[in-house]
């Protein structure tokens, strides 16, 4: 790997856990650990994707009918919100690496606000569904749509978006923790591991949504 112009080299004397030889080694290990964790996340969601695919392949008409109950405009709005938060997260990471902590903190706040915005939009969507009786499986009591298995579509919808939403909430907690640590001056060009790996996590949350949006809101 070539040393790019903007590249930084971790200070060799930075504090690191005693079982690593260098801070560099520790950083690489942490990053790889996060990547492996993301692998488990993909496979965790894979179960839901398979359940979705089964439903879709065998009930295309139902999927088509049922997805009209979702508001694609809300979904698109949330997509834009999450992509924006991904951008600010990426910028926050690079700002930390360059040592511009004030900027990084601001960007992290923007990320946090975007995440909150995402949840507010989701709240309105959920509240509407609950009100109408569009609920998963056995809870379903929405009279307008009678097509078979429509409740199952919403089971998948609620579980998928629910678990994704849970990831957003966890991400928000971690980002808030990052902000506090950053304010205490714990991060800089020599040490930014938590910011970087939280970034990976946050981009993954975005990644999942990138697939959920067309799969759930844009069935055709």
């Amino acid at each position: 790997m070539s040393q790019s112009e903007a590249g930084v080299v971790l200070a060799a004397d930075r504090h690191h856990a005693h079982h690593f030889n260098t801070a560099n080694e520790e950083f690489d290990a942490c990053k790889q650990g996060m990547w492996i964790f993301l692998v488990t996340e993909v496979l965790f969601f894979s179960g839901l994707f398979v359940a979705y695919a089964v439903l879709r392949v065998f009930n295309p008409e139902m999927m088509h009918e049922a997805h009209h109950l979702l508001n694609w405009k809300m979904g698109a709005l949330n997509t834009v919100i999450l992509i924006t938060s991904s951008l600010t997260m990426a910028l926050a990471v690079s700002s930390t690496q360059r040592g511009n902590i004030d900027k990084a903190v601001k960007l992290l706040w923007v990320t946090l606000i975007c995440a909150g915005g995402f949840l507010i939009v989701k709240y309105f969507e959920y509240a509407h569904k609950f009100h109408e009786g569009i609920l998963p499986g056995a809870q379903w009591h929405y009279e307008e749509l009678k097509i078979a298995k429509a409740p199952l579509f919403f089971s998948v919808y609620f579980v998928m978006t629910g678990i994704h939403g849970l990831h957003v909430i966890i991400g928000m907690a971690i980002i808030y923790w990052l902000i506090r640590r950053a304010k205490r001056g714990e991060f800089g060009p020599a040490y930014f591991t938590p910011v970087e790996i939280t970034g990976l996590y946050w981009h993954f949350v975005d990644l999942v949504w990138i697939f959920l949006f067309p799969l759930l809101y844009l069935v055709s």
Partner: protein
Amino acid sequence: MSHAAAPAVQHGDNYINHTPGIKSWLGTLDHKRIGMMYLFTIMIFFLLGGIFALGIRLELFSPGLQYMTQDTYNRFFTYHGAIMVFMVIIPLIPAAIGNFVLPMMLGAKDVAFPRWNLFSYYIYICGALLASSTLFLKGVDTGWTFYTPYSIRSSSSATYVLLGAFIMGFSSILTGLNFIVTIHKLRAPGLHWDRLPLFVWALYATSVIQVLATPVLAITLLLLVLERTLGIGIFDPKLGGDPVLFQHFFWFYSHPAVYIMVLPGMGVISEIIPVFSRKPIFGYKAIAAATFGIALVSFIVWGHHLFVSGQSEFANMVFSLITMFVAIPTGVKVFGWVATMYKGSLRFNTPLLYVFGFLFVFTIGGLTGVFLATIAIDVHLTDTYFVIAHFHYVMVGGTIMAFLGGLHYWFPKFSGKMYHETPAKIGAFFVMVGFNVTFFPQFIVGVLGMPRRYADYLPQFTVYNRISTIGSWILAVGFIVTAWNLWRSLKNGEKAGDNPWGGLTLEWQTASPPPFENFLYDPVVTEGPYEYRGDKVYLGKNA
């Protein structure tokens, strides 16, 4: 495997007495202490699962219901299965022995993420306690496989067991993740991939399975919990769902999980044989490759659990064909182990006796696996006692024997004391005899048609069941003798010395018990792990 510096003079400081007090253990980040904590906890659950097993066998001593109602019996086999699978065999070798030995074999001071290592132990405790708490509630009667729709409708406390298993899954994932990064990043200088001990290879393959498969179990159990609480309907035929889909989800994890259970055992065997034969392992590369081959194939054979479940003919054919290929790497390993003994210089200490037991029992388990992979044969044998016997031959005969072999092998390293050899051999003898008496008759009674999970059976099956029950008592004696002997040895065993067996892997190149950060010098590796040259004399006063 050699090292740059000779072991430094011991000054009596080791991981056990490094910091005193129970608190220093509960909050420890030391992989060795965490490994030992896992070991003791798992042994408690092993005892619990064993009691349920004895209860099952007792009830089956005679046809009819003697000691329990059907519902009680159904709870007994569910707890036996769930405890043994989720709480005992899956963490047994990786989390207990692996945690202790792996970083030492790599020449590392600790695993990559010690905090997460401790955290994973407490997650395990939480999950295990949550699941076992149902013993005091309504119990659980779904079988450890939780097949829908029965598991949706069961009025037992299945939800808590599901959540418990879900939580324990994260412990398993974290252990796997930790091991992978440790193996990638923390190897001693000179410890190239082709010099890794085979136990490390086995743990590596196991960790890959844990990381890739366990999340699918997590989502499956979560969906089942939602199915029970909210009625989401994905697996519920009453709501339009597909119960066979649940079986696909479940076995996508649970078949690879079988290899989470057995691969580390194979790794232990690969360690013990060269040391006690004083010979390099026969076909190092083939065995390492076979380990990974098994791990990868394990992901694409799960459908052989569904041959009669309503799975399509085409899928049955595909899964049967792929399953056959599991036999090949397994065969390569067994042949390699036996060939390692050829022209060796064999030392009959207890670990090697367990290896003999393992080879005897695991070969039967493996060969009967071919029966079950053969699709037509499986139709008759599946869900009968033949399957019970088969997987006990693999899981108990394979994993537990390898575990006991490994426990005796590394006991001096764990404790600094040598176990008493004669009672250990008596224990091994009882385990071997008891195991075969218990489970061999089950093959026959299975072929004759006795289905599994039956509280009551036709009188014609009585004689086989009686033999089996008597075998379970012999087996219990074997475990008790072994446990008692090891406990006694902890107290009054002789001092073991750093390397009582003459092992060449790195964990033997430091003090017993090891010092706080494993090595008092920085180990450097210059050759493979089993380079026993015939003309050289190796240390090892006990072997």
